[in-house]
């Protein structure tokens, strides 16, 4: 029995772990991650986009991967997040997150028989329903036996934070709650208590200086030069290229035939009774662009910027990468593939037109890092710079880290700058969730939870006091 296996108990205090089957929810702009603390991957990763079916009888919201990619005629694809990186549509966000949790983790609780649609007869008795409302509400709460750890962006407002705890406590009935910033958790996921976290996500790039597990608020920087911005750049490049590169999402193509590079596509397209909405199409296009980003786009990783000296010529010499659109159109992308991501580091290199002005220089990642460091106490700067954690899906762009490292070394040549970027894709994308998973499964974390009792005593403002 001495051989440790899956059925033996871990040694007492091993890793100081003591999990209480807490649920970690890490909502993001592109996906929402949820899973049990103590696991290494979020069990439930569902898109943060939702579909809205507007009909005469009212609107219906559809969640989940399967629902939002279905080309229904009147399906609007929306996102509850605002442009400032803070949740805007709280009502839907709550439902979306609830879906993320219940679809895979807790399962749907058996609903009240009067409401589950199986028993038609009871609907007639409206009074009885009202009487039972309390009981119904109590039963519906999906998180009754799991403490909940939710992540928030570093720049979250006090009001939004209170909203989080309200949702968790009142709507979901969680016995305990905690709110932690993504930056801190991403640092934890890399095994660091201090460092600068560079998180390049879909909607926002954020730089979070973390010291001993606490965010240095003055140093938190964010900008919108992130994954969606790169997509936008690609769209512009497609539009501005001669001839224009057509962007056809998958759902429109019925069948395609192979064509030569650059030749126009020869495909048969699907016909729809009612054309899917623009938002749906845009979202579907985004998927193609994601593929494009994954397989073609490259960050210039050499010395200096792409526009510096002969760099562009060197880039031209590099072998191109082919890409085929869903409709069969294909081309080899040469130096163009360096352009979309270049603006993340060099605002002047941004592709722009009337609707999409150039970003400001202080929005670029190197400037953000510089500003973040500038807002930290001088004594801590070298420490932070030697622990730079890179996370977020957009950092998976090819050679992103090389470039980032070059840029930072250019700004701070005299310090020892070290980048920590987890090698595996999952860890890079879900670092914040993994950090939350670690944190919430620690035995020493038990005392930090905000319990329901405390919430009831102090109200939502307790979150400001406790989750620092």
């Amino acid at each position, binding site marked *: *029995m001495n051989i440790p296996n899956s*059925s033996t*108990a871990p040694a*007492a*205090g091993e890793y*100081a772990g*003591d*999990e*209480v*089957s807490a649920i970690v929810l890490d909502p993001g702009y592109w996906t929402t991650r949820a899973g049990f603390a103590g696991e290494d991957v979020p069990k439930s990763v569902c898109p943060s986009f939702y579909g809205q079916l507007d009909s005469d009888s009212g609107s219906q919201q559809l969640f989940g991967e399967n629902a939002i990619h279905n080309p229904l005629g009147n399906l609007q694809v929306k996102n509850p997040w605002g442009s400032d990186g803070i949740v805007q549509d709280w009502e839907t966000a709550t439902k979306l997150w609830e879906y993320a949790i219940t679809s895979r983790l807790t399962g749907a609780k058996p609903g009240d028989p009067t409401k589950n649609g199986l028993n038609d007869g009871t609907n007639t008795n409206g009074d009885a329903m009202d009487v039972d409302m309390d009981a119904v509400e109590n039963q519906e709460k999906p998180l009754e*036996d799991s*403490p909940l750890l939710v992540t928030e962006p570093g720049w979250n407002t006090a009001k939004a934070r209170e909203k989080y705890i309200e949702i968790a406590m009142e709507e979901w009935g969680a*016995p*305990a709650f905690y709110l932690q910033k993504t930056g801190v958790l991403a640092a934890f996921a890399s095994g660091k208590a201090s460092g600068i976290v560079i998180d390049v996500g879909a909607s926002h790039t954020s730089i979070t200086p973390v*010291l*001993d597990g*606490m965010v*240095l*608020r*003055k*140093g938190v920087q964010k900008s919108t030069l992130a994954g969606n911005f790169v997509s936008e750049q690609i769209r512009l490049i497609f539009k501005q290229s001669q001839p224009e590169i057509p962007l056809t999402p998958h759902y429109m193509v019925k069948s395609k035939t192979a064509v030569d590079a650059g030749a126009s596509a020869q495909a048969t397209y699907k016909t729809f009774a009612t054309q899917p909405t623009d938002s749906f199409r845009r979202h579907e296009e985004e998927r193609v662009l994601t593929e494009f980003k994954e397989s073609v786009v490259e960050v210039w990783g050499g010395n200096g910027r792409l526009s510096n000296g002969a760099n562009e010529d060197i880039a031209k010499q590099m072998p191109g990468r082919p890409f085929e659109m869903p409709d069969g159109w294909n081309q080899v992308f040469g130096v163009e593939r360096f352009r979309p991501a270049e603006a993340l580091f060099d605002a002047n290199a941004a592709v722009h037109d009337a609707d999409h002005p150039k970003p400001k220089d202080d929005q670029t990642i190197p400037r953000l890092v510089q500003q973040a460091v500038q807002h*930290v*106490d*001088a*004594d*801590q*700067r*070298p420490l932070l710079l030697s622990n730079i954690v890179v996370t977020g899906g957009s950092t998976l762009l090819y050679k992103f880290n090389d470039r980032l490292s070059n840029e930072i070394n*250019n700004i*701070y*040549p*005299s*310090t020892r700058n070290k980048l920590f970027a987890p090698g595996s894709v999952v860890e890079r994308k879900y670092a914040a969730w993994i950090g939350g998973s670690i944190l919430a499964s620690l*035995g*020493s974390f*038990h*005392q930090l*939870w905000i*319990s*329901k*009792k*405390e919430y009831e005593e102090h109200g939502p403002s307790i979150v400001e006091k406790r989750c*620092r």
Partner: protein
Amino acid sequence: MATGRDVRDMLGLPMGAGAGEQAKAAKKSKTTGGVKRMQGVAREVAALYGERPPPVAVYEEEKTYRAKRQNTGPAKKWVQQDFVNQARNDGLVLKHWRRKHAPAPPVQDGEDTAMEETDITGPYIENCGDFNKYNISVDLPTFSDEEYEAHLRSNDWSREETDYLFEVVRDYSYRWAVVWDRYDYQPGNNSALSQEGVDGDDGNALAAMPFAPPKQRSVEDLKARFYDISAKLMKLRIPEMQMDADQYSTYEILSKFDPLLERNRKALASALMNRSMDEVKEEEFLLTELQRINMAANRLDAEREELRARLDAPAPNTQIAAGLQSFTSSQALQTLFSQLFQQDRSKKRASGGGSGPSRLSLNTNDLAQTPASTVPGPISAVNRRQSMALPQSAAAQTPVRTLPPQQERRYNVSTHDRLTSGVSFGADRLVKMRQAKSNVQTQKIAAALHELGVPDLIPIPTSRVGEAFESLIGKVGKLLDVRKVREKEEGEIRVLEAMKEAKGGSSTSSNNNATATDDKRSTSISAPPADRRSSTAAPASTPKTTTNNGTTTSTSKRNEIPDSNPASPLDNESSTRRTSRDPTTTTNPDEDDDQDDDQDDEEDDVVDIDTSHPRDNEEDGDDEDAEGEEESRQPSEAPAHVSTQQQQQQGRKRSASEFSAGSASVGSGVSKRARK
């Protein structure tokens, strides 16, 4: 059952040979039968070995299986155990997975299961204190209102803000960077609340007035305030006198915190961090240059050290004179040279015909250019070594910048032929100068200095003070010597007068006798060298003639005696001896100069190889013998000079010569008197 053997035994028949063999065979078969027979393929393999099995036994590898999982009964049950954390005070009940508790003594089977059921449903709540060790809070100084009013008031800080500061510091456990980051004191809130009751909006505005712009406190401001309060409280709790070392050092750190200094330091730190790439590269370049130079210097030092060690090697005698003595014979010099030459060659070979600067030892060319033949004037042995130690190229490379004497004085620049390693203090030198070879002499010098009002300890012993003191000491020495000579001469005169009175007017022969009795032994022993000297010292006015080299060496050797036994040159024994023995030399000063020159010559010639005068070697040997004896005897003659002080030699010598130059009249007077 009787066997055939028994039957034979009974019948008295002899045991047949065949029977014996049989028994043996039986035994053999028994033993062979005991060996385990190999099976299967292994047996065939063994058969291939033939009759002689290999020395290493062949083992059939036993098949190993993973140990069977021991089945300890049915699967252990786990339950989601409710628990409360001791660190919490709100009684939050969480659940974690625990092994199901074995039920307390199972008494009756049927009832026990029922009990268990109730146990699970019943509210057993574990009290979990496993992680209490991580629940730590920081210690913070506390103060009461009175204390605050009495000691801790500050113009810059309100009581509220101070409290807020302490709260934040506690919250963030002294992490100043975080404290500063989160420090967000809103003065309006508190004061507004307190004032609102009095008179609404106006009061609010008034109250906010003094704090109107929320101050931007820097980390240093926060720290300064906090440390200041901490120090004051610490002093209040424990008076300074009663603090132990740790407490006091803490107190000192706290009370000596200087926000300005800290701010400057941080500004410097951030400036250092924000340097451009070029600056960093330049610094790197300079650092590598420095390292390179240091390494070269170290190498050069090591080489010089090695050279010195090598030069000292034949005689590890620390005394220079004694060390030199071993090289006085040309044979010894020859061996030394060949030794050096060999080392040089072997080194060259080892380093693959090493380049210029690595050449360390002498070659014949060097010998031809020894300072004795080229450099006129006296060069000390020390100097000489230096010139040997320095490779010529290095000497040529070092640029010497000469300053006019005025500037030299102004900037206190001094040039040295050779700097001794390590640090020496001017005060030490001065103290050493005070000491003579004998206690009596030392006391005399001390008395003379005391008379002159020179303090025992001279403050600020600069080199110039040292020089002045040295010349003073020289003069004191001269004075003492003169005094001594006078006493001696007076004594002689008295003796002579007494003799004169006794015998009633005798000739100069009696004079001679008197001197002879005076230092009979030394005269008798040093007679031959004195003779030789008299023959050679006459032309000694031109001592550097090459033909006379050998002889001058030997002569000066003899003359060195007084040097190595410092008091001598002016010791009237020798001078009187000279005067008495050598009436042709009328002037003592000349003699002394000669002597100096001679000595220098001698030193110069240390490595001179002179094979053309083999006779000189013998003479040298002779001389040495004589010297040895003389030296050994001298102490008995002049006990006052026994304690030799090597360091004083130079000064003494100089003072002696100066004396002889200055007090020529005395000497001549004496000699005249003596001749008379």
